């Protein structure tokens, strides 16, 4: 990687066990500002675990993790001010209204109430759900909840963004807005850590793709580099090849033949 720049995220020999099960078996990563990382891997490969460790949601890992040059265990509150997170499952205090929830989150990040209130309202409007600002989140549709989650992750203008399936439930127009936002943010030097199963999106937006399987990194590079490495066309095919999965046709055929039984 480019020398001279200081890594925004630096992970050295990260290992994690759940009981006797080894989930991460030594992850090494250096990520610079302005990168959009597509973090992909099969189910149970350790993607969410990596994210949760980086966010301080899980403890008990081995190895060293530095964000902005500081160990994440030393002053966790400081680094969390500069990150944003969209979790995979839409966990929110949904008995609150969008206004109550977003202003609360903003205030945790140290913003003044009036400012968050204004920003949150504007952002909701821009996402086309301004009318629902005073309504309870529990009454929202899946896509609306997702928009609130995205706003809550961005409202304090963080330097690193962790997205775990951020597009679930969003309509095509909102997806386009969101992709554009990501690209612009990266141009401003922000780091985006994007974890998803939707290969087409990852292929298009990421400028660096990291593929993990069974707790180790099996590929790391731009889409073009991955293409050259595996001689395959789309990211989906590269994913299949690198994860050693090539019998999808056979499985599909067996699946259908089971359906026909009886």
């Amino acid at each position, binding site marked *: 990687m480019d020398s001279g720049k200081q890594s925004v995220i630096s992970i050295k020999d990260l290992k994690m066990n759940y009981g006797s099960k080894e989930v991460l078996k030594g992850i090494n990563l250096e990520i610079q500002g302005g990168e959009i990382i597509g973090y992909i891997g099969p189910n149970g490969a350790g993607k969410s675990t990596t994210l949760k460790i980086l966010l*301080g*949601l899980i403890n008990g890992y081995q190895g060293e993790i530095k964000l902005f040059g500081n160990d994440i265990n030393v002053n966790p*509150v400081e680094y969390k001010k500069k990150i944003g997170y969209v979790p995979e499952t839409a966990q929110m205090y949904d*008995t*609150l209204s969008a206004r*109550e929830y977003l202003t609360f989150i903003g*205030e*945790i990040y140290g913003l003044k109430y009036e400012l968050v209130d204004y920003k949150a309202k504007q952002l909701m409007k821009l996402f086309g759900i301004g009318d629902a600002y005073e309504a309870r989140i529990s009454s929202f549709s899946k896509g609306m909840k997702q928009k609130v989650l995205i706003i809550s992750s961005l409202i304090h203008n963080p330097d690193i963004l962790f997205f775990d399936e951020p597009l679930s439930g969003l309509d095509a127009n909102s997806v386009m807005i969101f992709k554009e936002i990501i690209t612009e943010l990266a141009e401003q030097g922000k780091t985006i850590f994007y974890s998803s199963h939707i290969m087409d999106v990852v292929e298009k937006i990421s400028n660096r793709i990291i593929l993990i399987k069974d707790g180790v990194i099996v590929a790391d590079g731009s889409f073009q580099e991955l293409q050259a490495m595996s001689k395959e066309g789309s990211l989906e095919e590269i994913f299949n090849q690198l994860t050693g999965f090539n019998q999808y046709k056979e499985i599909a055929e067996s699946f259908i033949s089971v359906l026909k039984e009886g």
Partner: protein
Amino acid sequence: MKEFKILKLLDKISWIFIKMGVDYPLMRRILQLKLVMDERRVPTVLVNEKKASEKKNTFRSSLFVYLFMGAFIGGFIFIPIPMFSKMNIIIAMLLFMIMTTMISDFSAVLLDVEDKNILLSRPVDSKTLSAAKLIHIINYLFRITLSISGGTLVCGAVLYGVLFSILLLIELVLMCGLVIFFTSVFYYAILSFFNGEKLKDIINYFQIALTIFMTIIYQFIGRIYNLSAISIDTKPNSWDFLLPTAWFAAPFSLVIEHNISRHIIVLTLLGIFIPVIMMILYQRLVIPHFEQRLNKLNGVGNTTRLGRNLLSNKVGQLVCKSAQEKSMFGFTYAMLGNERKLKLRIYPMIAFAYIFPIIFIMNQIDFDASFYDSIKEIGDGLNYFNLYYSVAILSSLFSFIRLSENYQGAWIYKVLPIDQPSKIIKGALKAFILKFIIPAFLFISILFVLLFGKRILPDLFLMFVNMMLIIILSIHMGKKELPFYLDFQYAQNGNNAARVLLMFLLSGIFAAAHIVAILIHPMAIYINLAISFVIVAVLWQVTFRFSWKQIEM
């Protein structure tokens, strides 16, 4: 956002938190948010009440319920028995109420993992979060404790002076500490051996127990005061040392009665030191490990109860004709076992079905005559007709089946190729009867046969058939509703009360016919049985003939 009094109170002692290294403004903000969210939550005590309006603080109304109950507990003060025994009883009731409330209403707070998932990825340190959580629990627990013990505080002050109340207040703090400790250890133990789903089940049972207990207290209140007639053993026992109620009762004997026996002094010391030690242990040992165990709640439960499902499937094969009805039977049977909120509504009603006839019979017991004689006298009479109260309550239960926590899942009825909606309701009804009605009626029938003898067996059969008649009749007359399609929030209580009233009316009519049959001729009951049976058979054919258009959805 709304300002709460407790927050202003906390502002005055904010320096304590700041000294402990807690981010006070943040803690205050989290607490404020939690309090707002709580106002939008309905506590168990009020589960039978009408859904309160948004603005109204449902917690405050539940405090009145506790205050009311507490008044009765306080009445015990006036019973002329030794202080130590008296306080033992009072504290046992207070502790029981505090403990069950803690488990049923504040488990949600104690076991909240949502906080962790939402807040820990943000700049919040875990110390601040734990402090907010603890204050949140203590705030409620102490207010509830004060309401429940309000009666005792006042009555005690009247009878023994203010010293009594001051002593009780100090003890209440210690008792709350003990309760928080025990609940956490209890949950910790459950989570060590079982998964999060099991814990939720256990909490559900506590909620059911609390609802039943509250109702029984109302019913029995007059009777409880007769307890004074029962002699209470006042000798110091060595097992007192194991009873928390004895630890807390001892200081009253010591301070108010100046009883300075060694027994009392040791108990008093236990009552002070054990809660304090427990609180320190809680802070040092339980909290760190507890939080880790809580991660289990995030996981998915994987308990399979294959055995039970197999049995219900076999029964389903026997009692259902069409395949769709059979599958509906199995589905309903499984749903009824898993729907926690539904159980919270149904089980207390079943308990009432047991309790009401027994209470009415107990009211007949003549306490002046010998117990055996009065039981024998009742056993010879017609008091078993009180069972029609059970019949009425049990008949009203089936309408609960339209409610579900997962009411959104009801789209499947519309999507699936079901030609006759009656098949859905038939299957559901059969499963419901098998799951709740038959076991409940069987149990209380056995009790009644023990009391009244085998002679009432034909009557019990007639009652059961009449109960079926009432259930089918109410389906016939009522709206045709599918199972599990409605949110609890739409189940207004007024509706249900009217339904129960109708059931009582119908039961009354059939009970009257039953009595007339008995009085005419000993054999007439079989004619009544035959008639009821024929009506059931005919009604069954007539009722289950509706089309999709008649279905309420």
